[in-house]
Structure formats: C-alpha cells, structure tokens
C-alpha cells in the first residue's frame, strides 16, 4: 500500500505569539509537526505495518520544515519530499493544495492522510481542496480507520457525534484528535531518520503555472486577541440582576 501524508510544520503549541511590524514573529520559536498531522503520520505507519508498502511524508515550507519530515521519519515514515516555498508570494490554501496536487500527481498512492487542520491558521481547507483537485473522495475529521481490500470504513467526528462512513480507495482522509496516540520518535528511529531519502523540490520543478499559485485571499491585518479581563458577578435579586445585565450588555459590551 502506498501511503502519502501531507504535513505542516507549525509553532509549538506552547509558544507565545508575538507580533512585530504586523507579522507574527518567528524569533526564537520552537517548531513542531502540526499535532493533527502527527495523528496522520501515526495512522500511516500503522497502516503500513499492517498492509505493507511505504509511507511518504510531504511538506511545503522553508528549509527548517525539513525537521518536521525528519521527525515523521524518526517515527517510522520511509521517505520525504519537501517543496521549498521561498518563491511563493503570499500563498494561501488554494496555492498549497495546488502544489500538493502537482507533486502527488506524479506519485502512486492508495491513500492520502493529513491532519484535518493546522493549529496555526486553522483553515481546515487544504485536505478537501487537494481531494477535489485529485478527483478522489475525502472524509474529514476521522477518529477511526479500517481498510479491507479497497474498502474503507471510517468513524467521523461530527461535533461530538459519530458518523460511520464507507468508501473506497483511493481516498483522502483527515485526522481528528482521538484517531490514535502518536508514538514518540525512538532513539534508534531518530538515528535512522537522517539516512532516509529526502527529495527537495522548488516550485520551478513542478509542472504548474505560477500565476495559478497566487493566493486568492489577502491578509489585511494580523493582531492579537484582546487580553481577557476578569469577569463580573452580579448580585442582588434576579430582577435587579437581569436589569443590570441588560444595561451592561448595552452600555459596556455594546452587543445589544
């Protein structure tokens, strides 16, 4: 079974976000594999161990993103492809999906996995867009995956409920928390990872019109959410409290 995993390197979830000159500062930041993509990598390794085949991890990003692939390879993925995004101007989900489609178009695959969203920009769009471009079915936010022949059974998280869905290979699925518990890269795995094959590509290497890759969205402003302030607990009779609440919603919160 040929298994592809699309992953993204993101800020460590414990990092504090700082904005400098209207941009998120990367100064001194630790990067990790996007946690949802980690579920995808783990699931891919399990599928390979069960059905045989190979796991290829793919990412788009700057040079440092190689480390995310190495981490996936230390977990057990067999090889990696990194596309340098240096030449891209303000890429968005449209651009990323098209690049991935172009890279994957030349590969043989039975299943593509990814996290259902990245914890940084949280759009949850790349997976479904990629499936559309490749003209294969997709199921998002899965919490269980079983493959038998070319039959695919999944459990999908729908806001706390579970949907049971059947489909067929080839397919793209995206991982929700709960799909599995990702393993830690073992020390022997880490030592092996640096010797595993890694293919580097530039946008120029792809058979794709650069105009198509331009972002279709524009970021107007980046700012931090306002600091959370202490709450207020109203006192007195319910009538008094209700009146006070309405007054505050009107005058202070200005929402009604």
């Amino acid at each position, binding site marked *: 079974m040929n298994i592809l995993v699309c992953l993204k390197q993101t800020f460590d979830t414990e990092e*504090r976000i700082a904005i400098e000159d209207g941009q998120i500062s990367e100064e001194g930041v630790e990067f990790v594999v996007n946690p949802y993509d980690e579920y995808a990598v783990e699931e891919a390794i399990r599928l390979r161990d069960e059905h045989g085949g190979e796991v290829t991890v793919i990412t788009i990003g700057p040079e440092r993103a190689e*480390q995310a692939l*190495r981490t996936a390879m*230390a977990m057990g993925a067999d090889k990696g492809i990194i596309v340098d995004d240096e030449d891209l101007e303000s890429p968005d989900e449209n651009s990323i999906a098209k690049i991935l489609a172009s890279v994957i178009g030349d590969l043989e695959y039975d299943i593509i996995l990814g996290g259902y969203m990245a914890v940084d920009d949280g759009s949850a769009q790349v997976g479904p867009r990629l499936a559309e471009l490749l003209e294969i079915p997709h199921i998002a936010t899965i919490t269980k995956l079983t493959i038998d022949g070319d039959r695919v059974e999944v459990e999908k998280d729908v806001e706390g409920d579970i949907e049971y869905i059947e489909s067929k290979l080839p397919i793209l699925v995206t991982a929700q928390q709960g799909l599995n518990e990702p393993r*830690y*890269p*073992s*020390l*022997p795995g880490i030592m092996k990872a*640096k010797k595993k094959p890694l293919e580097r590509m530039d946008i120029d290497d792809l058979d794709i019109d650069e105009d198509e890759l331009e972002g279709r969205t524009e970021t107007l402003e980046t700012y931090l959410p306002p600091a959370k302030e202490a709450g207020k607990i109203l006192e007195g009779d319910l009538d008094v409290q209700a009146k006070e609440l309405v007054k505050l919603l009107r005058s202070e919160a200005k929402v009604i």
Partner: protein
Amino acid sequence: MAEKTIIKGGSFLIEDHSPQDVFTPEEFTEEQKMIGKTTEDFAKNKVLPVLEEIEEHNFDHTVKLLGEAGELGLLGADVPEQYGGLGLDKISSSLITERFAIARSFALSHGAHVGIGTLPIVFFGNDEQKKKYLPSLASGEKFAAYALTEAGSGSDALGAKTVAKLSDDGKHYILNGTKQWITNSAFADVFVVYAKVDGDKFTGFIVEKDFPGVSTGAEEKKMGIKGSSTRTLILEDAQVPVENVLYEIGKGHQIAFNILNIGRYKLGVGTLGSSKRVIEVSAKYANERKQFNTPISKFPLIQEKLATMAAKTYALESAIYRTGGFFEQGLSHLDNAEGAAAAKAIAEYAVECSITKVLGSEVLDFVADQGVQIHGGYGFMQEYEVENMYRDARINRIFEGTNEINRLLIPGTLLRKAMKGELPVMEKLGGLQEELMMMMPSLSDEEPALLEKEAELIENAKKIFLMGTGLAVEKYGMKLDKQQEILHDAADIATEIFAMESALLRTKKAIEKDGEEKSKAKAELTTAYVYEAFPRIEQRAKRILAAMEEGDTLRTQLSILKKLTRYDLINEIELKRNIAKRIIEEERYVV
C-alpha cells in the same frame, strides 16, 4: 575538533581557554534535539501523570515505565551497539539525563539504572559479562543497581566491611555483609557490589538478585525523592559465581572511583534539568498569582529572584555542556570508546566532575529555595510541584560524595596532577608573586567592549586562585590536606572560575556566530553571574590569606589582592530587571 590537542582536565585554572575550546548547547545537532524532545515528552506525558503513585512506592509503574523507556532507546545511550545499546555521544546521553530530571524521583531510578548500575559493566566488564548483562539492561527487560555504601562506610568507601571468600570448590565467592541505601533495590535484577576478598582486596562483583543468599530490606522513609526505591541489600553467604568478578581482584577501587566521576557529572546534569523546571513553574506562578491586584511577577523583588535563578542556571548549563564536550573530545581519540580506557579518559576530568557536582547541587538548592519563596505559602503545600522539588533537591549535596568531600577533591586532584607533572601549575607559580607585585590595575576611561570587563575579572580570579594555593603549598607542603578550610575555599574559587568562564566562553561563541544583538540575553546572564560570583572569590581569598599570614606579610598579600579585585561596579538592579523580563514573558528559562 579531532585535530586539536585534547584539553587537559583542570587546565582551565592555569590557561586561557578560547570559545572554540568549549562545546555549547547552541551546537546541539537536530538529532540531539530530537532525542531531548522524546525524553521530555516521555517524562511529561507518561511519567508525571503517575508520579504521585510512584511516590507512594507503587513501583509497578516504575518498572513498566522504565520498560517503555527501554523500547524508546532511552536506556541504551551509553551501551555500545554491539551489546544491544545505541553507543551515543556523551552530549546526547547528557541531554537524556537533563530532560528526564522533570520526572523527579523517577529520573533518579532511570539515572541509577543507566549510570552507576549499568556503567560499571560497560566500562569494566569482560566480553562474556557484557554479552550476558548489557542487552537486557539496555532494552529495559532487566534493571541494575549499585551497592557501595555501608552503614559504616560512605565517603570512606574502601572502609567497607562486606567480605568475599572463595568457596572450597573454587566455583563461587561467598559474600557476607549489608549494603545500605541502594537505589532501585526493590526491583533491580543485577547489583554491582563491592566486597573485600579475604578481608582486604577490595573487589567488584556482579550479583543477581536470584543468587542464593541475596535479599533486600524494608523501604527507607526519606525526606525527598520518595519515588525511588531505597533499601538495604543483604548478603548472607551469598553465592556469586567466580566468573562474576568485575574487572580484577583487588581493583574494585578503580571501578568505584571512575564510576563516581561519571556519577558526579550526571548528577550535575540532572540538577540543571531540575533548576530549569523550578524556574518554569515559578515564573508561571508569579504571572498567575495576584496580590494588591497585581501579578507578583510585576514586583521587582520577585523579578530579582527569577533573574538570579536564571543567571546561576546559565552558568551551570554552560559548565555542564563544556564538561560534556571534554568527555566527547577525550573519547573521540580512542579507537574503541569503551572499557577501562574510556573510564580513564573521563577520569582526566575528575576536577570538572566534582565541580559540576558541587555547582549543580548548590545552584539547584538555591533555585528550589527561591522557587518556594516565590510561591509563598503555597510553596509550602504538597500539592505544589515546587514543594516536592525543594525536598528532592536536598539529597544532591549529599550523595555521590558529599559536597565537602568533593570540595577537598578539587584542589587535591589539581595538586596531584601538578606533582605528577600533568599540569604546569608549579611553572605558573614561579614568577607569579613577582608579576603580581609589579602589576598595575588597568584603569581606562574608555567604555569597555562587551564582556571585556568580565574576561578581565576571570583572568584576575585565576591569578587569585594561583596566588592562594601557591602560598598554601609553600606554607603547608604535604600537610596541606589537614587544612580543610583552606582547601574548601580554594575549591570554591576554582568552581566559580569554571562557572564564570564557561558562561563567558559560551556567550562569546554565540556572539561570534549570531552577533551581539541576538546574544543579548546570554551576555546579560553572563554579566549578572560574573558580578555576583566575583565578590565571593574575593571573600574566600581574604579568608585564606588571613589564615596563613599575619602582620606585614599579610598586609602585602592583601594589597596585591586589592589590585586584583579592583573594578568598576555595574547597575546590577537594572540588569536583573532586564533578565527577568524575558523569563516572565516566556514563563520559562530562556537564553
């Protein structure tokens, strides 16, 4: 690194080391960082959730978790590949120890197993013994412990009462005696035990728990590190096959002292991880806790604490990885980096090992104490992590040789090296007095370059060390070992020099690579440490001089000291506020 001559242990006191001579945490490879992350994730996500149960002596967790650590390769870093380990470099193995430290008492079980438990076999076992024991110790199927201490012999290890006698058929040694405070004893399968053959030949043995006559006593009730198993090991006519003699009959002291060197260094590494953790929980708490409607992290007195904790931790971290770099360098020159030769390469840095032990345990004690203070009354409550860390910290000044013993060892070992001609201390001493008499303090109106003053202070500190020890050797000769107070003070000066210089060289190396702007935090931490440590050096030096000399001679010596300790003061208050800002913002130790 391989082309350079090996830096000699203890040479930092008489020579100037350059930034290129030190290994720094900024040079971790991606693999080393990943190894560190795997360790930290394992400790945080697997161990911490059950640590409370482990502290109640539920050692099933310990055994299970150590097994899982073995599957991840976290037990095999120091075991050669041919015996089922990973044979990793010493920096990687240090990182594992450092990152495990947040798991507190569990980290001790891990450390005792991979360190003093397994290493005697790695370094001193024969091929048969290594094949028999190491693969299962590296994989986590079996666990090791180390049994040296007895009720009547702690630091005086060779005073052990446990005896070994060859059986009549010549097939076994029969061991009798009781070993005390044996870490991991509840679940260890293999004990490295020292006993005197025929009552006088101090010898190491590999003792399996299932050998006839081997048992353990009750769990000790301890002040801290409650989650580590500590019992007596009881040997009653214990039958140990002759092939389980470790190394050679009568040469147990070589094993014991070499393992102690590594044990001391690893202890220092552990205190580094713990210190960082205290800073993290204390900074988080200081941001959350409000008094007078203000987070207490806004108060300068809390900031001062966090800044001093960070500066000490920075010096310790720099000293630890500098020493780790020495090991790596020493071992890379060996064709086969194992066995007694490897132990000898490490013993070259016995002074640095004792320094990292003393420095680390005292930095951690300070940091943990301040951590409790930042937490106020909550720091006294057991549900707060810092309370636990405070109690756990205390043992570090005691085991692996008390800090008193290690302090005596620091100048003692240096002088022995000097006598053997391994270090040109005597050559340096000749002419020093004269040089010092002639010396004029360099006072310049020009604004000094970044860290220039700090470098000068360190250079002067080295002169102070040589001056003091030189006079002591002159005065007491071979009887210097009776002057424990002077040796203690000399050890403190040497330790501070190593700490200050490690921080300075690390920062300089970072500046060479990243520039001054990006190395600002490191430079501030270095300055803060140097200006705090230097007065301690001056005070120790005065005490030494006043004990040895009197009258005019004393006045002359003190006037020389005065020249060496004259410097412009800096605004430490402002400096520490700046340092604290970063720690409070990031809620952890950052450089």
